[in-house]
């Protein structure tokens, strides 16, 4: 069919413009009406048919939508609109490969169409077609060089493509086109400068990065980020004195930020996390005594030395550290200190300390290491018992752990944390059922506490009491429709725990369903980044955007995904190995249907 046949008279041409407008403003019914008006006179008008299809797609009439769009395309293969629409249809079905093909066809017919180029670039970055993305962004920049976003996006494309040099040059060229920064865009401009420094840092051009930060210092609004970057850069360039000064300034702003502490420690010549020499230890000790003078209220300043101190120094420091936690009854003391247990010597010191405390408190009301006449309040004793219970559990001594937690519960049966720890001990000692009962007892003492409710649910699942688990979790889901609600909330810990429980009980079909749900959440999370491609560019949150893209690239390394993937494999193997003929149960029946091709792992991973 010739193109000429597809040209509408002016009245209908106006109507067509209206369809597009109705589509963009989500007035779908009106759009359909307008399309039908054109189609009454020109039933073969391709672009109208395509637009009607696109509109129908938004009214959840997918089949009809494809029908109309394909018919439109058939009548007007030479229309970029038809191809674009076809691409949009695929895009809405998340079939990005097909969508890209359609956009490319559209661009063949109208190579400089900005809208289609933009849509194509979004798909390319979503699919991580980095060279395609770079190409498209370059084309957009050449077509519209006066648009800020086109410069930035091209730079991002080169950055992601590891062409750091080019990326930096693009940003500098863009800076060169600016004649002053309007007040309203100061924040965005500062972000651009920080992003430039980030690119330089990643390329290894540390000094250029420092230079960029220095030059931009009065234009960068996010002062904190600039300072953090400076500290990092000075550190890496070997300017330790400079780095130390920056980290001290940062600690002045927030003495409890552990990154700043790590930075300070490396600038003092130690590598946090690796062995240190006695000299280095002495340096750190002096530094932290000094910090303690300055920031007596900071918990971090008191906690961090426990990592590097040894022997009697450690003992004295940890004694004064735990005293406050015990007196205030802070339940998290053990989890705060548990990382110290990599050192057996430290664990032994803690054990001795707490044992002594527990034996002296009831008679003297005093902590053995505290001088002075102050008598401790009665709860100090019970919190010390609570610590010891967790301590022994951590060291694998369940009997002692149980003894201590039972003593704690007998002393003050109203502290709910005790029941959760007892549940953990029982579970690790190999009695998940008893664990669940104790956790549920704790839960029943505060029915308004969602955390307790989740804990109890978790322990029910560990004990393979799926029904009790469902009844429990349902107390906190809307309308008691827990399955759907939990899925909507992407409640993955539940799905994974429940899936594992079904696996243990050889209900493979049910397990499969839950693990698949987890895989779906990850597909959704991946899909969710789509909106950020244009949003972050507009808002100029470039550093965060790049971090987001990288996070998405490692999404499938997430703990929940791995657990679900392992679970899926086990479920499939379980189904395969199941003796179908021998078992008349429901799960065996569903196993038959699940063994068919639709359930191959490839279809959902």
């Amino acid at each position: 069919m010739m193109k000429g046949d597809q040209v509408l008279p002016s009245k209908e041409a106006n109507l067509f413009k209206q369809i597009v407008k109705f589509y963009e403003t989500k007035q779908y019914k009106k759009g359909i009406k307008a399309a039908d008006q054109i189609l009454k006179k020109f039933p073969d008008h391709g672009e109208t048919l395509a637009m009607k299809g696109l509109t129908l797609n938004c009214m959840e009439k997918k089949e009809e939508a494809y029908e109309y769009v394909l018919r439109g395309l058939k009548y007007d293969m030479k229309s970029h609109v038809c191809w674009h629409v076809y691409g949009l249809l695929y895009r809405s079905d998340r079939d990005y490969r097909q969508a890209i093909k359609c956009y490319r066809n559209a661009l063949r017919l109208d190579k400089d169409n900005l809208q289609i180029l933009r849509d194509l670039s979004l798909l390319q970055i979503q699919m991580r077609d980095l060279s395609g993305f770079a190409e498209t962004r370059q084309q957009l920049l050449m077509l519209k060089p006066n648009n800020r976003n086109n410069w930035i996006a091209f730079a991002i494309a080169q950055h992601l493509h590891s062409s750091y040099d080019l990326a930096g040059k693009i940003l500098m060229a863009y800076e060169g086109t600016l004649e002053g920064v309007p007040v309203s865009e100061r924040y965005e401009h500062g972000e651009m400068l920080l992003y430039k420094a980030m690119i330089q840092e990643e390329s290894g051009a540390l000094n250029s990065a420092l230079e960029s930060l220095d030059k931009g210092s009065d234009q960068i609004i996010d002062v904190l980020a600039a300072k953090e970057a400076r500290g990092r850069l000075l550190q890496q360039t070997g300017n330790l004195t400079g780095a130390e000064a920056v980290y001290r300034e940062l600690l002045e702003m927030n003495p409890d930020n552990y990154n700043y502490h790590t930075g300070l420690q490396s600038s003092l010549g130690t590598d946090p996390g690796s062995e240190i020499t006695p000299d280095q230890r002495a340096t750190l000790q002096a530094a932290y005594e000094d910090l303690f003078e300055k920031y007596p209220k900071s918990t971090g300043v008191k906690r961090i030395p426990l990592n590097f101190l040894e022997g009697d120094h450690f003992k004295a420091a940890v004694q004064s550290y735990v005293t406050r936690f015990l007196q205030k009854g802070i339940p998290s003391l053990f989890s705060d200190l548990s990382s110290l247990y990599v050192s057996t010597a430290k664990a032994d010191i803690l054990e001795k300390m707490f044992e002594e405390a527990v034996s002296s408190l009831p008679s003297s009301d005093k902590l053995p290491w505290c001088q002075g006449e102050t008598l401790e309040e009665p709860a100090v004793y019970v919190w010390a018992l609570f610590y010891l219970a967790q301590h022994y559990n951590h060291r694998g001594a369940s009997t002692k752990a149980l003894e201590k937690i039972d003593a704690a519960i007998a002393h003050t049966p109203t502290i709910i944390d005790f029941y959760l720890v007892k549940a953990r001990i029982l579970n690790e000692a190999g009695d998940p059922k008893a664990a669940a009962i104790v956790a549920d007892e704790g839960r029943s003492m505060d029915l308004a506490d969602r955390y307790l409710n989740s804990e109890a649910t978790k322990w029910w699942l560990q004990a393979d009491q799926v029904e009790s688990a469902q009844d429990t979790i349902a107390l906190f889901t809307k309308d008691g429709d827990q399955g759907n609600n939990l899925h909507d909330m992407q409640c993955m810990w539940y799905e994974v725990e429940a899936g594992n429980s079904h696996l243990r009980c050889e209900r493979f079909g049910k397990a499969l369903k839950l693990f698949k749900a987890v895989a779906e959440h990850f597909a959704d999370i991946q899909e969710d980044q789509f909106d950020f491609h244009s949003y972050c560019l507009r808002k100029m949150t470039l550093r965060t955007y790049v971090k987001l893209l990288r996070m998405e690239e490692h999404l499938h390394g997430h703990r929940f995904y791995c657990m679900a993937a392992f679970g899926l494999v086990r479920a499939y193997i379980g189904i395969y190995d199941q003796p179908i003929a021998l078992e008349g149960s429901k799960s065996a029946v569903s196993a038959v249907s699940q063994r068919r091709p639709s359930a191959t792992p490839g279809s959902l991973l």
Partner: protein
Amino acid sequence: MAVEKKLSPLAISLLQPSDKNVNVLKKIHSQIFSSSYQEKFFTDSLECLPFTSMALYSDFAVAAICCRLEKLPSGKSTLYISTLGVLSPYRGRGIGKKLLANVMKLAKEDQKIDEVYFHVPVNNAEATGFLKSCGFAVEGHRETIQGYTDNCDPVDCHVYVQSVSDWVAPEGVEIEEI
């Protein structure tokens, strides 16, 4: 008996029990009292707010006072304190007295209440000493408790009756409201 050292009072705040945390109230009762209380006891106590209340020390409950209002033909009411208990490690530090004083203060503010009374087993020297020091008067006659307690034998009890208007708050029993 050895002379007890005098310990400083513990700071508490009040918590109104509800159906969300009634199990804490139950825990306190099963820990302190030998008789087991039936469900009805707790539903009745929960209906008697704000008199029925728990004491929070730091952020967990260590004591409770349960009450019940008894309507009189005159239209007035008597407030019956059915239980008062402090977990043993937290005794002797002013908590019981604060809970009792709080109930008396609330009763004073309630126009309908003239009297508050209390049953105490005659052999409970601890409670007797405690009530005396809180300014409660001992009324001479004895009677037998019947009703809520179910797995113990009926016991002889003293009845302590305190007129609301005569009662004077002892010192140092103010509770900071949360």
